[in-house]
């Protein structure tokens, strides 16, 4: 059955594409973002409904069953996953999307004679497979199913080059002759390339890789749009490609590094692996009561959350502490560095989960000039994003990365477990400054103690 003529089909696909664009536009403010996501979902429903109504489809019961299976698997996971596991989940969904695009391209090969279309098919096969396998490895790393350290072995660059050369050969065969076996080979080579691409990336560089693979999947979907002559897939894929590209660049820039450096640095011997050397220099450490006094008698406190807060799952306690201080008439804000944590915007999601209103989440550019007026900067599980080495020591791996200027505050308090450095594996001179106090311990425990002491003041 085919209820829609080609004109209506095209119009409805176009409408769905417009809904996707509006979904992304909605994300420019937290106020409209949720509605935007629903608009996007509506676009997806419209697109799928159009597919059912427009083409003369066989196997409809099977297809509906497959959709039911996919939904039954994904929806509960999506509903129950912990916020800290978000990167894994995004990686998993990204991978299956890339895989689906590659499979669709593979099956379309039989339906075309046009060399341009076969070029798009070859592209989709390769990129979709890279995205699938790369995401799988990423998932395994993040879920700690395998080591999170960079996996490098001699000859890696040579193998990678070989795989890519073979892929070019298979691709040419697909484009010129449309041979199915070569197409399958291309798929397999793509899988291998995906694995080899992600293996040498250190666990903590992984978010950048996720975002890059997200862009890849977008491109693969856009190319399938070309294959199928489908405007919806073309526009949707292009949008995702653009978003992935922008996010990847933004993350790399906020870390003061280049995308190529992150991906290929490992081939040349080392992704930032996170040194865990412990320093022995003396510092001023303190107890929860003293920190509570510092905070409770301040006029203005700025809380700087970082990766440690996420690890410790201390966001609710941090939010309670902020409330308790506000009840004492103290002005409290959260200063959010764009790459604090392990995903772009990680801290925003974390604190939003703890019901901190987004007006209190201040972006770096907005709050940096205000540390001067703060009595206490409370750094909870952050390190690199406040490390002055980014400004002063040009040899440092984070040199050039913009940081939160906590050193301008009258007092700085660090909550961390040890003297171990952060993700970039470099010392933080700020820890040794006279104005700095350390409170050792798991972020959540420390926050709970400080909260109790503040309430007892």
């Amino acid at each position: 059955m085919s209820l829609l003529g080609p004109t209506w089909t095209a119009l409805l696909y176009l409408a769905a594409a417009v809904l996707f664009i509006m979904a992304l536009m909605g994300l420019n403010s937290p106020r409209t973002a949720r509605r935007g996501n629903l608009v996007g979902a509506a676009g997806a429903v419209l697109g799928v409904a159009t597919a059912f109504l427009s083409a003369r489809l066989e196997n409809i019961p099977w297809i509906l069953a497959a959709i039911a299976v996919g939904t039954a698997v994904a929806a509960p996971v999506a509903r129950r996953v912990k916020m800290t596991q978000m990167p894994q989940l995004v990686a998993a969904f990204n991978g299956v999307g890339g895989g689906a695009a590659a499979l669709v391209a593979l099956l379309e090969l039989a339906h075309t004679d046009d060399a341009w279309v076969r070029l798009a098919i070859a592209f989709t096969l390769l990129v979709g497979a890279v995205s699938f396998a790369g995401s799988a490895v990423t998932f395994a790393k993040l879920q700690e199913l395998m080591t999170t350290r960079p996996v490098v072995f001699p000859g890696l660059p040579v193998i990678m080059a070989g795989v890519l050369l073979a892929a070019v050969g298979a691709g040419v065969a697909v484009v010129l002759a449309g041979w199915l076996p070569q197409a399958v080979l291309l798929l397999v080579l793509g899988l291998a390339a995906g694995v080899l691409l992600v293996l040498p990336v250190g666990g903590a560089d992984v978010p950048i890789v996720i975002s890059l693979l997200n862009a890849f999947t977008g491109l693969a979907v856009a190319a399938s749009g070309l294959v199928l002559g489908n405007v919806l897939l073309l526009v949707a894929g292009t949008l995702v490609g653009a978003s992935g590209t922008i996010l990847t660049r933004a993350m790399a820039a906020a870390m003061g590094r280049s995308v190529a450096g992150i991906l290929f640095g490992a081939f040349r011997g080392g992704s930032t692996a996170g040194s865990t050397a412990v320093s022995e220099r003396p510092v001023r450490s303190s107890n929860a009561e003293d920190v509570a006094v510092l905070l409770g008698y301040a006029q203005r406190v700025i809380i700087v959350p970082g990766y440690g807060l996420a690890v410790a799952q201390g966001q609710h306690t941090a939010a309670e502490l902020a409330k308790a201080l506000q009840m004492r008439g103290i002005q409290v804000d959260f200063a959010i560095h764009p790459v604090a944590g392990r995903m772009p915007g990680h801290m925003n999601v974390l604190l939003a989960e703890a019901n901190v209103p987004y007006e209190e989440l201040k972006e770096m550019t907005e709050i940096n000039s205000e540390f001067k007026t703060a009595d206490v900067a409370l750094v909870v599980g952050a390190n690199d994003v406040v490390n002055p080495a980014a400004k002063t020591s040009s040899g440092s791996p984070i040199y050039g990365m913009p940081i939160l200027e906590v050193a301008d505050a009258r007092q700085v308090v660090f909550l961390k477990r040890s003297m171990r450095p952060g993700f970039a594996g470099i010392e933080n001179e700020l820890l040794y400054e006279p104005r700095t106090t350390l409170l050792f311990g798991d972020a959540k425990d420390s926050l709970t103690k400080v909260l109790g002491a503040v309430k007892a003041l």
Partner: protein
Amino acid sequence: MDGISLLTITVLAVFVGFEVVSKVSSTLHTPLMSGANAIHGIILVGAIIVAGQASDPWVLAVALLAVVLATANLVGGFVVTDRMLEMFRGRSSGRSDREGPR
């Protein structure tokens, strides 16, 4: 649709994508990542079409696998993004709290 049209549409879509996404506030970069991720699940449309044209059982099997994968991407992506965005709230979602201490 001819090649030139598709190319033109692609070029314009690239501009739309870059312009729209570069306006997304950095507060929302995680939901952007997962929302964009959901959008590419629309490859489901392609998967449905190839599955609907399949007569060979092997082809059908592969196509149905694609349908399952794409559905997981699409549904899971939108659900998880919604969950995340639901958490972003302004001061008490309303104004009542506006005068409260800050």
